[in-house]
């Protein structure tokens, strides 16, 4: 009834559970960046940023390539898109449920009025 994607979704959501990693992903949505560029808006050391990047890489949300001595980081869009679709499938499910709850409450109210 609702889309199942299993463990990749857990990886995606776990990786996104951290606010610094979410800002990194938001920056990468605008295009490729170097590690230094990704670290600059944060009051966090370069090693700490590297640790966040490793989490994102293991979850398959980013991809790193080396050009000469510069590491370039890019977003892998698919898992985030899947997470979005998963939430959308639940949105449809719950919209239907909450409508049905509304109809039920209307029925209860109508019954109460008839009794009066």
């Amino acid at each position, binding site marked *: 009834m609702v889309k199942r994607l299993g463990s990749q979704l857990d990886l995606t959501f776990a990786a996104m559970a951290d606010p610094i990693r979410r800002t990194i992903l938001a920056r990468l949505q605008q295009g490729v960046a170097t590690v230094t560029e990704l670290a600059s808006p944060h009051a966090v050391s370069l090693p700490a940023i590297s640790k966040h990047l490793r989490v994102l890489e293991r979850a398959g949300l980013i991809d790193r390539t080396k050009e000469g001595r510069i590491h370039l980081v890019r977003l892998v869009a698919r898992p985030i898109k899947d997470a979005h679709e998963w939430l959308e499938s639940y949105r449809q499910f719950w919209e239907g*449920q909450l409508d049905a709850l509304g109809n039920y409450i*209307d029925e*209860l109210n109508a019954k109460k009025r008839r009794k009066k």
Partner: protein
Amino acid sequence: MTVETMPRLVLERVYPTTPEVLFGCWTDAEQLKRWFAPSPAHVTAFAEVDATQGGTYRIGILDHSTGKTHIVAGVFHEVRPFSRLVFTWAWQTPGEPPDETLVTVEIEPVGNQSKLVLTHERFPQVAMRDSHEKGWSGCLDKLAEVL
């Protein structure tokens, strides 16, 4: 989807009833059965609800088009009468580990109506861990005061 906020689903509705009635719609199995089917093609086959902290629930939804019953089950983590329910949510698929998620239902009176906010999140382990951490740091703060 913007990636700047933790991805979660939040829906809000206002119903023309009291928080007591609205809360009962979720916690009383007989009432839940009356409304909890996602479309006219579905029927709530059964509903077992023990709405107490640590209590469990199981709901079976029969899909007339396929003849299959989908089962969803979970555990109540928080039950605050007429205002708040937190429960895990997992569709049961034979032979597959359940896909566990977390649902929070918050109810508050708005004039003579009731507002319901439903939040559905993917990662109950994270939410639980965070709340445990908060519990712990609270304990540590108190300890620090004593010391």
